[in-house]
């Protein structure tokens, strides 16, 4: 039952995010647009490039979607509303998200096209830079909760959310999450102005529809992870727990969307330099500060 509810919540959030995305792009609020766009993708010709790596080409969009849903499986909407309350939930989400890279490399290599391939390799380079900024802030979150169980992590924030307890970790995780979801200004693998769509460039029809659905689902999963790790998960007054989780998740997802709208795409070299020389030392500092707080403050 939990599986169905979480899946419906995930789809509903994706739909809302797509509506907001359309609103910011066209200036018109059209609730039916995502559905119509999806149907249009189903009806369009799905072109296969010449001499593709067929397995990679076909698998990549589906793999990205599976990865996004797997990540969401360990993120609770309410104390009992989680698909899998694993003892290693925080670790599992890291493992699941690692496959985003695999999916994008496959989407880049599969079509046998230059733009897609550069996009895929770019994401690999990017990952080396920000992967630590996903893992290290989660480590600090788990230190405070003294557990990797995501429901326990939310429980540890009763009274004081991690965004206040470890604001540095929140900033680093939020930025790295945007990069992992390849949202602007970190959209280097797709970069319409540089690569004509990059890893998306050779996909059409239903395959492109799945790829877009997967991208939006990934954004929601990462926004949900931010909510669980830093924004107190389901905690909040008056409304039921699941409602707070959804509201916070959507707020984070929309802020990811808007942040990219008002910033130019970051240079690849700058992203890597800043991650290595600034991000990782700051993430280490965050772990030390949280460690001291855990020891000093009961």
């Amino acid at each position: 039952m939990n599986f169905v509810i979480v899946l419906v919540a995930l789809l509903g959030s994706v739909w809302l995010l797509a509506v907001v995305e359309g609103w910011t792009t066209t200036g018109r609020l059209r609730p039916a647009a995502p559905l119509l766009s999806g149907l249009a993708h189903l009806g369009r010709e799905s072109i296969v490039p010449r001499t593709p790596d067929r397995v990679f080409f076909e698998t990549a969009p589906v793999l990205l979607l599976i990865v996004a849903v797997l990540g969401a499986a360990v993120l609770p909407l309410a104390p009992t509303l989680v698909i899998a309350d694993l003892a290693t939930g925080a670790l599992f989400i890291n493992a699941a998200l690692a496959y985003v890279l695999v999916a994008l490399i496959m989407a880049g290599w599969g079509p046998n096209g230059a733009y897609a391939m550069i996009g895929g390799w770019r994401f690999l380079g990017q990952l080396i830079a920000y992967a630590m900024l996903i893992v290290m802030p989660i480590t600090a979150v788990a230190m405070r909760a003294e557990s990797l169980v995501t429901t326990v992590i939310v429980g540890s924030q009763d009274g004081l959310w991690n965004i206040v307890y470890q604001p540095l970790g929140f900033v680093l995780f939020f930025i790295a999450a945007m990069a992992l979801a390849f949202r602007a200004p970190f959209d280097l693998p797709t970069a319409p102005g540089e690569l004509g769509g990059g890893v998306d460039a050779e996909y059409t029809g239903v395959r492109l529809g799945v790829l877009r659905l997967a991208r939006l689902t990934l954004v929601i999963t990462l926004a949900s992870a931010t909510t669980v790790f830093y924004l107190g998960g389901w905690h909040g007054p008056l409304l039921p727990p699941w409602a707070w989780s959804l509201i916070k998740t959507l707020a984070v997802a929309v802020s990811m969307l808007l942040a990219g709208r008002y910033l130019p795409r970051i240079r690849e070299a700058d992203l890597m330099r800043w991650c290595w020389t600034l991000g990782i030392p700051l993430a280490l500092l965050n772990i030390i500060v949280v460690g001291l707080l855990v020891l000093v403050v009961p």
Partner: protein
Amino acid sequence: MIEVTKDLPRSADGLAMDWMKVPFGPVFPGLPGGLKLTLTLDGDGVTEGQATSLVGMINESEEGKEIDAETFIERLASAMPLASVSYRLLACLAIERAAGLENDSATDQARAVALECERIASHLGWLAQTGRQLGFAWLTDRAATLQLEIRRASGKRLLELTPALHALAARLGRTPLLKSRLKGIGILPSGTGGLSGPVARAADDAGDAWARLWQRLDEIITSLDYIKATGEPGLPVLRNIGRGSGTGEATVETPRGEAQLSLILEHGQVKSYRLDTACSHHIGLVAKLVEGRELGDALVAVGSLDLSPWEVIS
């Protein structure tokens, strides 16, 4: 491994890689339509590149075929869709000079205002294109909206838009990441000849994409000040030249740089002409700008030249 890579070209770091020749354009989101950029890529780096226009004019009139002066003006203006007022003015001036007409200060003033309006609109169009290239959606939307308003605006309405244009410039100055994206990109080697327009004027400063952005923003403000001091724009219209004959030359500072036109007029018909434009020279700079750069930087460098493929004369 050595067997596999022994004949492959070497990157700057000594690694053997497969190099790819990749076309960007003639229809590509980050470049003006009609411009084809061919880059040889070593991974995400550019080893060499060249740009060609697929829509530029041919610099000669058809053998023995004379063109009516009015038709010539229309053809030239419509052949340059990104600067039609500038080239209309250029053709009018050259024909009027060939016909021996004296300058008329009122007409010149109205034409100059129209030229400055086009300069503002053109620079805003470039900003919108740059926003598209950089994935900066807000800039694309804002600059494109202002460009449309400027194109439709009267002199009075233009002045009402002044605060919005100042606000745009101020906002760009405050935008995080923009400076780091453009600073140091697209610097031309010292002593590069053939520069004109904003590219040449920005070369006096840092000579990079960031300097070119601010040069164009400064020109927008300067043009607004000129319009404020002068009056209403008047679209260049050919004065009565009768069946005049002679040789005429004219130069106009278009939004992308200097354009020169010389022509021979016989009995009110253009017999032959020669056109020289800034973009015809600037397109040759692409190879120097892209070599050894990362792909993203190379495209930004090319974009900062504001090449109009229609204004490349072959």
